[in-house]
């Protein structure tokens, strides 16, 4: 019997009014895989993330993480079973500092009353803060941890959000356009960093318009178009697939989609 996939999306349906944004979508993300989720603007990629992370309830189908059905779990509890995500439009807490934002990512790990009531804000050399600083360093984020996030460059904030998502110790990490707005050097660094953490056993699902980033990082790809799954296979084959070319790649629309993705 083959091992349970890390994530199984099975016949998932989601409608917003008359618009079907997930139309009987099924795909598996194998344990330890680095998978891309691509598709044109408005295809339903972010919505798929929102369904998996519990922002919206699904209208049909089933979502399971490592064999456990999670689609009935409230959003708050999904991070606890090992699911973590970032957001397409940066959603760092504007009034928290860099280190405070990262330490917020540890929230589910602080389960005891003692850890909830420890003054993490004062413990300069404390365990929680050290772990957060360590992760920031690993990700190559070289800023004062006590600085305000609002003043930092876009690319740095984007990376901080990835680090925050990592702090909960997830089994599945979902990143929504992590490379959007990064320059080529930052994109390469991010790719290397993600490969490093994937080696530690993490499963990755990445929405991205930057196809060179996708080719570099992800061995497998699923493609959504108008809420329907039109491709599920190796990233290598995606360029040659007729349906994908028609909907997304190999047309001038790629450039437009990429531009819009970066602006978002």
């Amino acid at each position, binding site marked *: 019997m083959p091992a349970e996939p890390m994530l199984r999306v099975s016949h998932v349906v989601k409608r917003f009014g008359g618009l079907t944004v997930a139309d009987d979508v099924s795909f598996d993300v194998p344990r330890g895989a680095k998978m891309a989720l691509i598709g044109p603007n408005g295809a339903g990629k972010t919505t798929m993330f929102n369904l998996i*992370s*519990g*922002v919206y309830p699904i209208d049909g189908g089933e979502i399971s993480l490592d064999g456990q059905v999670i689609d009935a779990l409230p*959003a*708050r*509890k*999904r*991070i*606890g079973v090992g699911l973590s*995500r970032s*957001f397409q439009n940066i*959603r760092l*807490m*504007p*009034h*928290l*500092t860099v280190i*405070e934002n990262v*330490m*917020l*990512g540890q*929230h*589910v790990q*602080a389960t005891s009353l003692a*850890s*909830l*009531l*420890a*003054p*993490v*804000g*004062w413990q300069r050399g404390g365990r929680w803060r050290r772990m957060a600083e360590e992760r920031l360093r690993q990700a190559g984020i070289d800023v004062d941890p*006590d600085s*305000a996030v609002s003043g930092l460059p876009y690319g740095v904030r984007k990376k901080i959000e990835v680090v*925050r998502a990592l702090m*909960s110790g997830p089994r599945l990490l979902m990143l929504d356009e992590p490379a959007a707005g990064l320059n080529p050097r930052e994109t390469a660094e991010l790719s290397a960093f993600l490969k490093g953490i994937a080696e530690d056993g993490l499963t990755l699902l990445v929405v991205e318009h930057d196809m060179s980033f996708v080719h570099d990082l992800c061995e497998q790809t699923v493609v959504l178009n108008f809420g329907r799954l039109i491709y599920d296979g190796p990233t290598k084959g995606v360029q040659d697939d007729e349906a994908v070319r028609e909907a997304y790649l190999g047309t001038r629309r790629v450039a437009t989609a990429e531009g819009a993705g970066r602006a978002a």
Partner: protein
Amino acid sequence: MSGYMAGIVAILCINLIFAYAIFVTAAAGQLNLGGAGFQAIGAYAAAYASSVLMQPVWITIPAAMAITALVGFLISFPVLRTRGVYMVLATFAFAEVVAGFLLRSTTFGGAIGMVVPDHVGVPVLIACAVGVTLLVFYLMATRVGLAMRAIHDDEPVSTIMGVNVRAVQVATFTLAGALAGLSGALYAHHFSFVEAQYFNALLSIYVLLFVLIGGTQTAWGPLVGSLFFTLIPELLRVGGSWRYVVFGVAIVLMMAIRPEGIVTRQLVARLSPRNWLTRRKTVLGERHAG
């Protein structure tokens, strides 16, 4: 201490505790314009326990806090169904109901008010104010405080991060009730008299202003806000009735110049000794280089 000074210190201590009550919910993004209602319940609970039930202060004050904590807990459920300006209105309505009830209730003396036999002096008020200040500073440094501030900034993302948003909000309303009750009980025991008219809408507005003008990002905010609001009117006393005009203009200017409050996180960081030292070093370094 002169009687005049003692009076100012006493009201400053009571206002500070009251401001922290409003602060803890505001720090988590909830605006409570019903502060006077909570304070009134605390004051009347202590007054009743003292004058009718003849209980000593060490029972009346904790009992008043327990009652207002329970009220805060219960009221949080309907109030948290509302947001933004509707929450402001809901809490305001709550305070009006409390004031109206006390004014008409014969049990609590109606418009005549109640005399409170046991007196609590200024040293006790100072001790309580210092204790509450330290407690809130500590709370804001914990993970709970971090979660409160995260909720203030972004509720949906806090939820995704695993924060039990509703539980934190209910807890802050409960704590706010307890603190407002403490301030009310201390008021009753210090001034030896309570009357419903004192706990009016203007008081609720003032205490929320203390907090918003002081700043809701750090526990320094209510401290600065209470000092500002308690001391400035006193300093302006020489100006006669013009002082209210000056005071009003000062408030408007504050809001225009520092919309996030007088004390922000950035201001605290800039004034912290650690940063001050490093900055001094760089300034010296620049001078060397130049």
